């Protein structure tokens, strides 16, 4: 797009030497300036990031490569290197893959609905059609202040056949049954996060300069047309961002189903991948649980990364 790109992007190593002044106008020397300050800025976060992100990831991978061996039935248990043994167990573990399938189905339905609603509300708030914007913005956002656990407890009561204020409905439709409980949870997640996503999209809409609408309006485009052809393309990055966070969130589902276990026996201890990790580690079988964690993190990473690349390529066209 814009012609001169950042010098770091081309020919690493040579760039700094050839064009010492291109990188930073003020720096005449090629050595890094303000080394101490940079260190002081980066080190606190860097150290904690290494300790609580990188080390655990490494440790999980290490643990997942171990197996427990016993000498005889009652012998001493020792951890020995087992190669990919745990991963073979992961791939043979039916309930785990069922739980992955379950959250994928959940995501395929819930994420588009949630983001569709968020986009609709954001566009309505940005249009001249709605009055009382401040009130609606706040009312829709309030559920985000409710922690997932609390929201799940609340909706658990709302779904329950005898305690619900909507017992006329819940006596006839059992939202906590094996068939429906996944979608009952989807509703809880949607309820909490629509307003949050709406706000991210809405702030992107506010950042669009008004002149961009003028041309379209002079051409006689209505609100719907402006939304579709002008606004949505411009706020695509915000929508992609919310989609990625939603995908990550979906694969990590834990609090809501864990709470629902006390409302519904249909939610098993392997209902979602993270519940599987938790119940496996409570057995305790840490090595297998670590392998589950690694596979789940990898799957999340790959899925969100692919989605990011895919949407970026589409936008580039």
């Amino acid at each position, binding site marked *: 797009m814009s012609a001169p790109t950042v010098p770091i992007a081309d020919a690493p190593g040579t760039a700094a030497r050839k064009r010492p002044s291109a990188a930073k106008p003020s720096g005449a020397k090629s050595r890094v*300036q303000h080394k101490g300050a940079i260190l002081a800025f980066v080190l606190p976060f860097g150290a904690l990031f290494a300790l609580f992100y990188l080390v655990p990831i490494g440790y999980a991978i290490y643990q997942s490569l171990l197996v427990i061996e016993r000498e005889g039935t009652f012998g001493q248990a020792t951890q020995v290197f087992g190669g990919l043994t745990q991963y073979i167990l992961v791939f043979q573990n039916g309930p785990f893959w069922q739980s992955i399938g379950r959250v994928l189905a959940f995501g395929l339905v819930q994420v588009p609905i949630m983001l569709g609603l968020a986009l609709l509300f954001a566009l309505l708030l940005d249009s001249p059609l709605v009055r009382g914007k401040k009130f609606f913005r706040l009312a829709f956002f309030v559920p985000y202040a409710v922690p997932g656990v609390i929201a799940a407890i609340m909706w658990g009561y709302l779904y329950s056949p005898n305690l619900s204020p909507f017992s006329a409905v819940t006596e006839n439709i059992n939202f906590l049954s094996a068939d429906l409980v996944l979608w009952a949870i989807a509703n809880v997640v949607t309820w909490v996060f629509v307003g949050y996503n709406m706000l991210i999209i809405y702030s992107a809409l506010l950042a669009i300069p008004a002149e961009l609408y003028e041309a379209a309006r002079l051409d006689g485009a209505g609100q719907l047309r402006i939304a579709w052809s002008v606004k949505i393309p411009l706020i695509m990055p915000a929508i992609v961002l919310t989609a990625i966070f939603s995908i990550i969130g979906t694969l990590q589902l834990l609090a809501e189903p864990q709470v629902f276990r006390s409302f519904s026996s249909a939610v098993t201890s392997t209902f979602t991948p993270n519940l599987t990790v938790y119940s496996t580690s409570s057995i305790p079988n840490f090595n297998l649980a670590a392998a589950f964690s690694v596979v789940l993190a990898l799957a999340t990473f790959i899925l969100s990364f692919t989605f990011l690349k895919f949407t970026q390529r589409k936008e580039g066209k």
Partner: protein
Amino acid sequence: MSTLTPTKLARGIRFAEAKAPRAQRESPFARVSAMIVMGVFTLYFLVPIWWLLVAASKNRSQFNSTNPLWFADFSLFENMANLVAYRDGVYLKWMLNSALYAGGGALVGTLIAGMCGYALAKYNFPGRELIFNVVLGGVLVPATALALPLFLIFSQISLTNTFWSVFLPSLVSPFGVYLARIYASASVPDELIEAARLDGAGELRTFFTVSVRMMVPALVTVFLFQFVAIWNNFFLPLIMLRDETLFPVTLGLYAWNSQVNQIPMLRDYVLIGALLSIIPLIIIFLLLQRFWRNGLSAGSVK
């Protein structure tokens, strides 16, 4: 505090311009349907909280026997007093814990994320892009995937079931670094840093006295979202903590709720406790909303 910033002014102008010609253009049908949609969803979002408020204000016998969406005898404060008194005020302890985990964690976390993002935006040094990419990868790694290995590591050094086992991992916010970097490169002019240098200010002092001020909207945003993330965090405390006096309020209410079938009176405490636990977040969002709305748009525009 109500200064007229350029963006506000622009928005105001845009609104004034837009209003006159559009007024005739939009059909009444479109207006009415838009308002109906917004109205219906307002009910969807607020009725559950309304129900919680009503339910928390009833005593046990009225919970089942009266209209669930309207007040009976208003015993909200009585219920609150009972909740606070129950088991030597363990609920207050949980609220305090949550405030410490979330408030302290988000404060320190925002500071270090802001510093790191600022350095990544404003200095050129080898490994800068590498660091940024690794941190960005960290955004995509779910925090829950880290909970179990953290537990295993912490149990090696006997740090599980302590305040620090929940507090320390909560300090790290890769998304905060991402947001701080974007915001710093967009809103802290190089000339200003240069000027501060010419005045003889050190780099750290420049950051804390000059640059931080321009990054306030981004920092408030980072603070808020980290605060919410820690306040809502469930897996890490669930896996780390056994001692009930260390629980955050979410874990405590979860524990009560799973015992409701054995101890029915806990249900009253769960409901009133749930209601009280969402009030701090609502207040904090309301107080800081003019900051974080600006910060949000910075992150998503990129």
